């Protein structure tokens, strides 16, 4: 369980990134964190990982105050940042150095992931492309078997087959004991995987709901003409007419379109908040 209680955060004296933010994340889920550039996704993830400290409020992860960074907290937490550093060594030497910090690390699992991503443990990080480095770190992070796994934009820089492998691997490691949090702009890469959805905007949590709740409350469809203007939360031109988001008045069971949801939430903040209260 990750409990974020009344968290405020700001860089220096500038405008706060978060103001009295509350959020509860529970095990057994793959959370998808969405938000515009600069909405604070990475700052929130870094607060959870104990890399940034709140100016007010707390972030508690499985009973540990993240900011105390106790070893027993850190050995159950893996954080893959969007921009990362890799030392100029062979992958197997990297693993030798870093895996002892994680008591549940499995070398067997790690080698399976590397094989799936077609990377050899004898390769040096300096000889790998950005995407390959990222895949090596994703493999390492998943093999640590930590209770909390946080990934900032993990599919950025991955080629097409790797994205599919990434989805398969996440589906295989998403267990009832684990919390996985993934921030992303590439919602189409991950839309069948992330659930619940969290949208950050304007220094607060604008939406936090499971796809089940979202499809119960909202309807996503394509229509030739927009009628019921007062009900439409968001609409955009598409090849077949208009893609619209409306309150789900009947018992429609649409697939949640995350891009439309995101645009609807940002353009019609209050209506979305009221619907999901």
């Amino acid at each position, binding site marked *: 369980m990750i409990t974020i209680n009344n968290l405020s955060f700001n860089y220096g004296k500038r405008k706060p990134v978060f103001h009295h933010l509350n959020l509860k994340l529970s095990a057994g889920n793959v959370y998808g964190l969405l938000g515009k550039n600069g909405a604070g996704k990475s700052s929130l993830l870094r607060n959870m990982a104990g890399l940034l400290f709140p100016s007010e409020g707390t972030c508690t992860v499985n009973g540990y105050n993240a900011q105390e960074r106790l070893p027993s907290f850190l050995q159950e937490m893996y954080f893959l940042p969007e921009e990362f550093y890799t030392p100029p060594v062979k992958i197997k030497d990297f693993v030798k150095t870093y895996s002892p910090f994680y008591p549940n690390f499995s070398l067997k699992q790690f080698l399976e992931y590397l094989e799936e991503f077609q990377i050899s443990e004898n390769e040096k990080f300096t000889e790998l492309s950005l995407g390959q480095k990222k895949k090596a770190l994703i493999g390492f992070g998943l093999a640590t078997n930590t209770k909390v796994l946080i990934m900032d934009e993990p599919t950025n820089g991955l080629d097409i087959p790797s994205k599919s492998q990434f989805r398969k691997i996440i589906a295989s490691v*998403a267990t009832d004991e684990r919390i996985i949090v993934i921030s992303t702009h590439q919602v189409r890469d991950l839309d069948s*995987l992330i659930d619940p959805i969290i949208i950050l905007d304007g220094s607060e949590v604008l939406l936090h709901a499971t*796809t089940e709740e979202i499809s119960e409350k909202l309807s996503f469809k394509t229509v030739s003409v927009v009628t019921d203007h007062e009900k439409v939360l968001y609409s955009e031109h598409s090849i077949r007419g208009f893609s619209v988001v409306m309150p789900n008045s009947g018992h429609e069971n649409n697939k949640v379109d995350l891009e439309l949801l995101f645009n609807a939430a940002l353009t019609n903040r209050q209506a979305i908040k009221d619907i999901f209260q």
Partner: protein
Amino acid sequence: MEFRDNQAIYLQIAEYICERILLKQWKIGDKIASVRELAVQLEVNPNTVVRTYEFLHQKEIIFTKRGMGFFVSDEAEDKVLAFRKDEFLGNELPVFFKNVHLLGLDFDFIKEKYEAFKTANF
């Protein structure tokens, strides 16, 4: 698996399983893929597959043996047919009727076409 935009993913997975059953690829009494196996294969959230299995369980298309997983039930085919009929009458037929109306088609003409289609395909 390529998911369509017009239906919740858990229902599309249910349809996928129903098709396996109607095509007899998954037979009565067979153990079906575990939640995790199917989630990995289809690259979806395991919780979505859990929802699909709960749905199929409630429709009595699959049943569970404690600690052993899910199995295709004895009446699976009848139940699948009933479920698919409901789906067709509820979702697809109204679209069909709308087109018949818009295009001003005559039902005798449609019937003729239908008979020809049946002879050609079945």
